[in-house]
């Protein structure tokens, strides 16, 4: 057990923030869980199980585009949601819960085929609110054609939980996995659109600012599927924002990620809120965006396709050779507007609690 577990006898708020302390907590839990089985990519957004070669017939899959390609991999993921407030501009806890899980499958390159829905509800929660939340979940389920196939519902006494907690697990099928460690030197780094707007919507609500910006929460299945064959690595920048995911991708691929301040993808309102609240904009989560690495020869084509979904999709940097220790990767670097180069670290500190 490392220092962290020994010194901290209680679970701290920071450990749920998506930054360094979260990494440590998760690492310590993993150290205890000893059965691995035949699953791969267990440190990715979804775990992968190699099925025996089988042809999956296209069944009632609604809008997702199944054909007779062989899907040899099963991808399985889960996510718990405690977002506060429950209802925010652009969505609610239901929408973010289902999109979160669908997107975890999508960024692995998988097509979701079914999800589960577990609810733990505090006594006193209104039926009307519950219905609103379930309607939100249903709306996304209809749009994407992914059914909720199983679930569980529990109610606790008042005060034992804060209003409602939702856990959604999901299963998807993939022929090719896009892992988070596949970035190659020479790749471009792309984003599917302006970042951080989920954070803006929630922070604005919490701190009483008015803005037109709504949460960017949305399913990414079609967007990713439209370009998945070109992506070498892919993640959605939720907790911990772009800073957290790019650092993870750089570390796992043992490469260096370089971004340019001039081409960064944040709306002026997003930057304004980050300055007003003193929270680093690179740590702002998005719930309907992805960042990916693409070989240079395909990046313009990929952006052109993605811009059909979101005009603000763009190239924000490139992947270089890691000069320093190969274990940690080269890190994430920013070329500032004045010409200096600054490292962007994985966020530390309390960050923003209960943002997803």
């Amino acid at each position: 057990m490392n220092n962290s577990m020994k010194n901290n006898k209680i679970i701290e708020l920071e450990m749920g923030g998506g930054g360094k302390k979260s990494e440590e907590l998760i690492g310590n839990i993993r150290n205890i869980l000893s059965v691995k089985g035949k699953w791969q990519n267990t440190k990715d957004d979804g775990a992968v199980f190699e099925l025996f070669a089988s042809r999956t017939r296209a069944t009632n899959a609604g809008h997702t585009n199944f054909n007779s390609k062989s899907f040899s991999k099963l991808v399985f993921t889960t996510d718990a949601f405690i977002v506060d407030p429950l209802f925010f501009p652009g969505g609610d806890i239901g929408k973010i819960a289902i999109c979160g899980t669908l997107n975890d499958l999508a960024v692995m390159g998988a097509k979701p085929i079914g999800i589960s829905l577990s609810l733990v509800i505090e006594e006193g929660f209104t039926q009307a609110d519950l219905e609103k939340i379930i309607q939100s979940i249903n709306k996304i389920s209809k749009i994407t054609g992914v059914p909720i196939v199983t679930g569980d519902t529990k109610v606790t006494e008042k005060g034992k939980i804060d209003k409602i907690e939702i856990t959604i697990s999901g299963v998807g099928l993939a022929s090719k996995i896009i892992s988070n460690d596949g970035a190659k030197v020479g790749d471009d780094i792309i984003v599917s659109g302006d970042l951080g707007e989920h954070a803006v919507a929630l922070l604005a609500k919490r701190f009483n600012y008015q803005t037109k910006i709504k949460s960017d929460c949305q399913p990414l299945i079609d967007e990713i599927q439209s370009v998945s064959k070109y992506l070498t690595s892919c993640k959605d920048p939720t907790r911990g924002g772009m800073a957290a995911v790019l650092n993870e991708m750089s570390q796992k691929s043992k490469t260096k990620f370089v971004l340019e301040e001039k081409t960064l993808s944040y709306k002026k309102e997003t930057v304004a809120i980050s300055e007003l609240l003193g929270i680093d904009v690179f740590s702002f989560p998005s719930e309907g965006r992805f960042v990916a690495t693409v070989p240079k020869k395909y990046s313009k084509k990929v952006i052109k396709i993605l811009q059909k979904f979101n005009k603000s999709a763009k190239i924000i940097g490139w992947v270089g050779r890691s000069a320093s220790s190969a274990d940690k990767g080269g890190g994430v670097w920013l070329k500032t507007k004045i010409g200096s180069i600054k490292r962007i670290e994985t966020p530390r500190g309390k960050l923003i609690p209960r943002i997803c």
Partner: protein
Amino acid sequence: MFADKIGMCLAIPAKIIKINDQLAIVDFQGVKKEINISLVDVKTGDFVMVHAGFAIEKMEEDNVKEIKEYLK
């Protein structure tokens, strides 16, 4: 309320949108908030520097163009 990361000195110029006695709605690059303007003499359309919920000073007319340059 979570306010652990609130920076005290951080401030960006804000435009006065609507005045209501000692308070005003200001606009920071598309983000609006109500702040206290009792320490300055301003009218709608003026730019002010806001610090911890108060306008601390008005930005001068001839400097507004300069401000807009900085805001780009």
